């Protein structure tokens, strides 16, 4: 699978950076000229993954969030969202709809479910104390990329 274009983004896990990260990723993929719905799906999934880094991975501190976004031939896209935070002990459990480690009921536990329903594929690799990498993949049925 040939990578046609790529970008990497790093920022501290401040909540004020969530919107910026989401828009950066959408600006990058908008060169595929996706439909509004396709891009909204990607934005929502990225937003959930970045929010998880901010509120779970770096719970009581600020750490760096790393995003790598790639465009492959045929409109395939892949986004890796990585943190060096607390990690997830049981990934399968974490990905279950309605599971949340947050007390008090302010989180719905639907982040991973949303990512899975809006993207073609979601993989999570995590090590406790080391961090988590979430990989989101999708094919954009676009009119194709502008050449340069």
């Amino acid at each position, binding site marked *: 699978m040939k990578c046609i274009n790529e970008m990497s983004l790093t920022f501290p896990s401040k909540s004020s950076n969530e919107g910026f990260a989401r*828009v950066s990723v959408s600006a990058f993929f908008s060169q595929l*000229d*996706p*439909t*509004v719905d396709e*891009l909204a799906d990607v934005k929502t999934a990225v937003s959930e993954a970045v929010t998880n880094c901010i509120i779970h991975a770096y719970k009581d501190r600020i750490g760096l969030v790393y995003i790598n976004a790639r465009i492959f031939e045929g409109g395939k896209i892949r986004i890796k969202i990585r943190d060096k935070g607390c990690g997830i002990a049981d990934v399968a459990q974490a990905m279950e709809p309605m599971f949340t480690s947050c007390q008090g009921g302010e989180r719905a536990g639907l982040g991973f479910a949303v990512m899975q329903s809006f993207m073609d594929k979601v993989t999570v690799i995590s090590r406790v104390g080391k961090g988590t990498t979430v990989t989101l993949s999708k094919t954009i049925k676009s*009119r194709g990329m502008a050449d340069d």
Partner: protein
Amino acid sequence: IGEIRRYLRDNNSVRVSRSMRDTAYKAMQVKERFINEHLREPKIEEIAELMGIRREDVVLALEAIVEPLSLQEPVYS
């Protein structure tokens, strides 16, 4: 039939390029109206509030009506 319907729907879906241009024009209208009412430039946040969208999405949309890239044509000549 499901296939065909999906095909039609996909091909009728609005492209981001078009939708962002619409949002950007709306943002510029909101900006003009704000200036007329308040006699000052609105902050991007104020435009976002009036439009009911997020600040960064205003920024993203404004890109859609940016002048031709300096890359393609020298803008200042």
